């Protein structure tokens, strides 16, 4: 573990990423305590510029709602959507990839054609259609993001499994009479973990972006204050009130950047041989 941490912290960007993400997570967890009032509450006059009142540091929006409170609650939504949809995508992608890679042949063909079917449709367009069909709410958004983001997982896992499949220890396991399920579960998957972890960290970032884009287009959950919603609502008044789109924009940028940096750091830490290349 300490070895892992040592390699991880060698990447300075990754450490910065961890720090930023930690702040975002803290804010999301502590939001109800830091800002006991609902983010929808109209607290001051509309379009109060930032820094004009200490109580409302980042100003207020078109209805007089506190932007800072909105950001804090928006962090909850972003992280929730990012993590849950990624987990869901992994739960779909890993089994499909593993089965296709391990059994090969017809199973591989069927599963991979199925996966490609999803890959050929532009993922954002598909997500819009899915959310629009099922009324926009947090469940349908998470489901839609999961549906469009599992295919890369399946392909990655399949590739890894294919290369592991012909290793001697797998053949040994087969010869010793273990069932296929046991082999996949105990021998194969644990060895594919590192690339999956790296991919997952990037998928969280993508999911956050997707959710923001959907909310920006007005397809967010109307009962949840999210960053994308804040920008979408502020788009038309960008010339009068720049801060309404600027701060949520920065929040999205930093969070996604942090996740990408972490992903890179994880890659360095989990694939030490690759990481040292060129240094």
């Amino acid at each position, binding site marked *: 573990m300490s070895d892992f941490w040592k390699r991880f912290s060698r990447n300075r960007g990754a450490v910065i990423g961890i720090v930023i993400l930690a702040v975002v997570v803290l804010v999301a967890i502590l939001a109800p305590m830091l800002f006991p009032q609902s983010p929808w509450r109209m607290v001051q006059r509309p379009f109060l510029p930032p820094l004009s009142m200490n109580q409302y540091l980042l100003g207020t929006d078109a209805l007089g709602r506190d932007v800072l409170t909105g950001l804090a609650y928006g962090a909850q939504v972003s992280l929730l959507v990012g993590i849950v949809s990624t987990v869901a995508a992994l739960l779909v992608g890993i089994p499909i990839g593993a089965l296709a890679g391990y059994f090969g042949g017809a199973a591989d063909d069927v599963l991979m054609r199925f996966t490609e079917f999803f890959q050929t449709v532009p993922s954002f367009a598909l997500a819009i259609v899915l959310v629009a069909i099922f009324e926009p709410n947090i469940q349908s958004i998470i489901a839609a993001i999961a549906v469009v983001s599992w295919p890369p997982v399946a392909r990655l896992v399949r590739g890894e499994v294919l290369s592991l499949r012909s290793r001697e220890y797998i053949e040994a396991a087969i010869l010793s009479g273990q069932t296929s399920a046991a082999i996949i579960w105990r021998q194969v998957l644990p060895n594919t973990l590192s690339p999956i972890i790296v991919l997952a960290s990037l998928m969280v970032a993508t999911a956050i972006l997707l959710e923001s884009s959907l909310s920006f287009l007005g397809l967010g959950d*109307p009962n949840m204050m999210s960053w994308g919603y804040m920008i979408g*609502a502020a788009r038309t008044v960008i010339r009068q009130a720049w801060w309404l789109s600027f701060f949520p924009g920065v929040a999205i940028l930093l969070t996604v950047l942090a996740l990408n940096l972490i992903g890179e750091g994880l890659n360095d830490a989990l694939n030490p041989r690759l990481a040292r290349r060129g240094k």
Partner: protein
Amino acid sequence: MKAMLKRLSLLAAALFVSTALHAEPVTGGRANVVIQPEPPSLMVGLVQNGPTQMVAGNIYEGLLRYDTDLKPMPQLAMSWEVSEDGLTYTFHLHENVKWHDGEPFTAADVVFSADVFLRETHPRLRASLEHMEEISTPDDHTVVFKLKQPFGPFIGIFEVGTMPMIPKHIYEGTDFANNPANNTPIGTGPFKFAEWEKGSHILLTKNEDYYEEGRPYLDEIYWHVIPDAASRAVAYETGVVDVLPGGSIENFDVQRIADMENTCITDKGWEYFGPHSWMWLNNREGPTSDVRFRKAVMYAMDREFARDALWNGLGKIANSPVSSSTRFHTDDVTEYAYDPDKARALLEEMGYDGTPVRLLPLPYGETWQRWAEAVKQNLDEVGIKVEIVATDVAGWNQKLAEWDYDIAFTYLYQYGDPALGVARSYVSTNIAKGSQWNNVEGYVNEDVDALFEQAAVAVTPEERQERYTKVQQVLTDEVPVAWLLELGFPTIYRCNVKDLVTTAIGVNDGFKDAYIEK
């Protein structure tokens, strides 16, 4: 302060100009106007949505126009009489009126329009014509409408969007909806249809043979189709367009544009429509079936804030089901000022158990979405749990028509008279699944039914007023729906475009009198 000074100086300048060279209208010039959204058709006899009426109202004409107090004014009819018993309406038509293709316009066209064409294609007019016994033409320039019983609103149905005159010689005996002439509308109005490039513009040119000497003043009206609200604002800022009719730009932009040099803004010109917004409250089931809950909703809403923050302070708080610009409005009703404590007390009294209610916003863009959020917050604060249901126009229509909602935003036109645009939302005879234009809330009260019915057929305005006052008092006591605002739709225009909004339908027939000062 600076803005005020500017306004004062503009006012002073306006006063000076008006005394110096008042009212010599200038001929010539082109008005550049935004049309939003692009109308599906310009044949106003077949299609009556907002943008169609706005363009076609300058091509077609009705027998009468209405001023901003809804008083009738001459149009195709030079003069008219109503008999003592309220049963006979006689119209004397202008004699030298020609259709845009040169054919003369006569009483036969009036009969064809009202009795044949529009009876088939115009549901709103058809309902009013139910009261008509017969229509006759003593000579080529006189039309007599005879009613079965007195019907007070009748004098209000001759507006161009309600009873436009349709050329008999083109449509008689044809399939109205598929007549190729629908693409090249022929009216009697001050402007002729010239060209329509879909997705780009509609061009109307001056009717040189117009029957009123000197009118119209403008040579052309050029309607710009610009699909994006921000681009429409930019088009005004850069001088591409000179007139932004109500609803052309986002409400948030209105103040900024209105503060520009040489820019005037008015919320007049909607009196005939009297756009009245409210929230349907489902009277059939759930917490909204309890009158105390409905009253609590009224007290919980900060409507003044909504008007100031979302509607730029334009419009009025609706204190009655009848808009203050509609005939027979009264202020003598139960008022519901913003009072969260009263709302909480009412909820306590009824023992509201926190059952969440579903709120359906009107899917007409940003302002309405924000408004739903503000109302949700208002209701949250008195302890009503609200879930906003996201929906598109089709879904909204369907949910209302199927009564699948608890609270839902809407706004409807009143057409100048409670019998035309108010009664339909409250009388129990108008409850039917499948439409969102009737008594959607499911309110049933026999007294209200009776009062509306008597008021519609009472002969004198005093008798009608008495009943409408009573019905407004009953309705505001029982709160079948939660009234929001009498919407103010601002028309924004360059100040040198004169006399544009002079009637109760504003831009819809305003270009007849408009001129552009150089």
